[in-house]
């Protein structure tokens, strides 16, 4: 499958963020969106996720499911972790697994994959920033979606966490997934660069 954006134009609060942006990502490929602060990296991800409406142009998935929208085939890992502090680590993950339509079953394997199985019963309120990130990553594993939209995915992760995430992304690409990541830091996997908003 192929994720394509054509002549995208994004306007936020009356200000043009970017225009005439084209990109294309194939299965098994990762696109790293780079650019200075405010260049529109997050806006681009939210456009693809359908959370922002483009002022012009369109985003399309070619060769994916005909019945599902781009957003419905995508995981969005944003700045905010979508975790409820009052719920335990396991409850948070089970909720998203059920809500997003993942296969039923134990969530512990996904938690073990991101190294959180030993604190499955701890309320998410007590997690560190890095642990919250890891729990969000577990969501990507618990429910299979071909498109991963990642916004600064490695922020707050320690070196081991970054290596772990690089491995998970690599596995995802090998299984035919595709990744669009907004990032400043190297992701640790082979990526193609998309620079927006001119030189830094």
């Amino acid at each position, binding site marked *: 499958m192929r994720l394509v954006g054509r002549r995208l134009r994004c306007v936020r609060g009356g200000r043009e963020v970017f225009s005439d942006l084209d990109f294309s990502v194939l299965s098994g490929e990762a696109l790293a969106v780079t650019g200075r602060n405010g260049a529109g990296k997050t806006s681009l991800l939210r456009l693809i*996720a359908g*959370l*922002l409406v483009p002022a012009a142009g369109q985003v399309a998935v070619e060769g994916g499911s005909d019945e599902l929208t781009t957003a*419905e085939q995508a995981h969005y890992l944003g700045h905010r972790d979508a975790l*409820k502090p009052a*719920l335990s680590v396991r409850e948070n993950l089970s*909720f998203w697994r059920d809500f997003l339509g993942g296969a039923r079953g134990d969530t512990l394997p996904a938690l073990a994959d991101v190294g959180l199985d030993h604190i499955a019963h701890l309320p998410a309120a007590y997690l560190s920033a890095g642990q919250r990130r890891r729990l969000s990553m577990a969501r990507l594993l618990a429910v299979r979606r071909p498109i991963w939209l990642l916004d600064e995915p490695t922020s707050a992760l320690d070196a081991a966490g970054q290596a772990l995430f690089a491995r998970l992304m690599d596995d995802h690409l090998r299984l035919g997934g595709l990744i669009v990541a907004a990032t400043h830091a190297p992701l640790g996997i082979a990526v193609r660069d998309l620079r927006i908003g001119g030189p830094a």
Partner: protein
Amino acid sequence: MTALTALIRRDLHVALRVGGGALIGVLFFLTVVVLMPFAVGPDLALLKRLGPAILWLGALLASLLTLDRLFTADHDDGSLDLIVMSRTPLELACAAKALAHWLAAGVPLIVATPVLGLLLNLDGAATLAVALTLLAGTPALTLTGMIGAALAVTMHRGGLLLAVLVLPLSIPVLIFGVAASNAAISGADAFGAPFSILCALSLASLVIGPVAAAASLRHGLD
């Protein structure tokens, strides 16, 4: 269906745990009603006459207090983005959230009513009548309030805006809720007519509320 039950269960869990909204609503209801006899004075006949109105006002304000967090909490932690993106229609997700809110914040108000009726010198039958009208009317409060909550989250203004938007919409519910209660208590007027209208308001808001809230959330995406 799994998605919706998961959403309802999560919202109930969050509301019922420490720091959740459910208890706050009941406590506020309790406070408003308990304060009334002190403000009105020890005139038992007057209290009895005002009783249904006080209980209804208390329930209205308490539900307003908890509605504020209905979408704001999900917006602040990023859950709302994922709910909007999901394969579950947003209208159904809104309806599920409204149901969870009503179960966590509306039902406790109804359960607390008999206890509070004692403080307002209402006899058993009168308290039952008020509880019954609250049962029929609080869904309308939640569902119309949800529209305001959705608008408030897209405009990044909580609290006060919600009250200004929602209170006018709640006036019909308040009128017919108190009218039905009074009719049941005094027996002078027919109970059926205002009670039917109250039920109709709840049913109409069940149709309009989720659609309007979902439209507002979609329109206000950013």
